[in-house]
């Protein structure tokens, strides 16, 4: 004997017909656990939607999903494609207060020819059925299903499951254009900024200038009397090594150069056995004595014993009594020619 269950609301009536596989005499309402036929009568629709369990499940899921979307305003699934094809039952909002129900024909049973309902069944259900529902009608549809789900004596294996949409899913549901907007904005700002900066001239980097005897005499002469004590004192060699900078003013430098040349020339007795120039950077103190020297090439190291620089080296100045130092490049050539040139800031000045 078939069991018939009906869930009625003003705008929607669900009718379920089925069988009970469990025989229980004491229960007043027998358990309906096998569904044979399902009908959904909607007011405004020409004929009821008739089908089986597939229709019931799809329609219930679509109605429930629509209700959640309506409440939260967050779209639950991509209506346009579900595994590449459109879902069998769709409820989509058409205006602010209404929605359209679309049911694909494969879910619907058309009454067989043998059965009663005559006229509408002759047409083949080639097209999906579309009905427009108002908010109240959708609610009645949802509520009819909710009452069915709450009924434990009808298809108890079906139940409602509410699960809030996760943050990740909801963001991926946003249209690509919406999600791409921040990135596009970022790229656009970068482009704008680069165009703007393109027109701004690149600032020229100027090396901080240290006062040197070569280029600062006017300032020095203005600021302080030219004298051995007044010049700023840079520093300073370790034992035997040449000092860093020079502080002796230009006129003195020429004198010192002469003194240096003379004392080296007089002391240089040995004939050169080297075949390339020996280059030294030599520091002299105020009196013209050699305060230190540095090798500037490998030959200068190898043949250092042939030149008299070590013999001429005075006592390294101690830090308390620092005297201004002048620096010179001293070159011994294989042809026994001695060259002495002022050394300024790492380069040799040929000017003076």
């Amino acid at each position, binding site marked *: 004997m078939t069991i018939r269950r009906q869930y009625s609301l003003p705008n929607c009536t669900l009718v379920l017909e089925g069988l009970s596989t469990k025989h229980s005499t004491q229960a007043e309402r027998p358990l309906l656990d096998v569904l044979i036929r399902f009908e959904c009568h909607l007011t405004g629709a020409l004929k009821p939607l008739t089908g089986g369990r597939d229709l019931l499940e799809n329609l219930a899921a679509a109605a429930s999903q629509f209700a959640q979307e309506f409440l939260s305003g967050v779209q639950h699934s991509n209506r346009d494609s579900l595994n590449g094809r459109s879902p069998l039952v769709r409820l989509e909002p058409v205006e602010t207060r209404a929605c359209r129900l679309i049911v694909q024909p494969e879910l619907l049973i058309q009454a067989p020819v043998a059965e009663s309902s005559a006229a509408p069944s002759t047409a083949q259900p080639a097209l999906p059925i579309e009905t427009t529902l108002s*908010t*109240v009608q959708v609610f009645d549809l949802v509520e009819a299903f909710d009452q069915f789900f*709450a009924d434990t004596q009808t298809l108890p294996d079906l139940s409602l499951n509410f699960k809030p949409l996760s943050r990740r899913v909801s963001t991926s549901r946003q249209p690509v254009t919406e999600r791409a907007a921040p990135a596009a904005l970022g790229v656009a700002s970068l482009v704008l900024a680069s165009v703007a900066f393109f027109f701004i001239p690149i600032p020229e980097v100027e090396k901080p200038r240290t006062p040197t005897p070569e280029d600062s005499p006017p300032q020095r002469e203005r600021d302080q009397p030219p004298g051995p004590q007044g010049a700023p004192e840079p520093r300073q060699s370790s034992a035997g090594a040449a000092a860093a900078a020079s502080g002796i003013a230009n006129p003195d430098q020429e004198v010192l150069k002469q003194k240096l040349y003379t004392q080296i020339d007089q002391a240089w007795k040995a004939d050169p056995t080297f075949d390339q120039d020996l280059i030294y950077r030599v520091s002299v103190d105020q009196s013209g004595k050699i305060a230190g020297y540095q090798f500037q090439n490998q030959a200068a190291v190898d043949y250092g014993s042939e030149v008299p620089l070590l013999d001429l080296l005075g006592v390294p100045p101690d830090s308390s009594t620092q005297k201004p130092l002048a620096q010179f490049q001293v070159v011994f050539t294989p042809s026994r020619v001695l060259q002495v040139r002022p050394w300024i800031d790492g380069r040799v000045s040929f000017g003076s």
Partner: protein
Amino acid sequence: MQLNSRTDQSVPFVLESLPDPAVLGEGCPHRTRLQIDLVLLAIEALDLDGSEAMLTAARELQLQGLVKNRVTLWRLRNSNPCRRYSQRRPLTLAEAKALVAIACYLARRLTVTIRQLLLAHEQLRTQQLSPEHHFGLAHYLTRFRSHFRSRMNLRRTSLAVYSVDEKLNELAMSLLGQLLFCTGTAGMQRLWSSLFDGEVA
């Protein structure tokens, strides 16, 4: 209404059907707090004695532990960040559940009114008439607009659109539709779940 008489329970009986969503951080998200308050605001616009009814509902639902008195209710509702006097306090899940239960309880009582107003709105729309042509609807919309403007901080950029009457009417009608879904058999679970759509981990 027959309810669990045990009051020493940590979770009131009526809230047991609402699961704890996996929210990030402490308390309810921004949208949840805003939405609950708006639903309650729509109820107040429908029911002249709405705020008193909420306290009565709290008693009838055995929720005094969470909603003790008028001040507590005010503080819970003012956890809505869009309020003019928004309280910088979190809304715990239990408190949110209590407010949802109260809202659905009152919505169910107002089922007839809600349905009538929605049907009237539908009718006016098919006739292309403004909502002012229906007394009840016009009354609801006026009350909602005045409640909204007196309580919300309209200087917030997110609320700037609601300086126009039409936008507020749209919001009021949307909330009325949501209230209808709250009246259903599973209305409370539906509302509760929808409040966390897109907010859970």
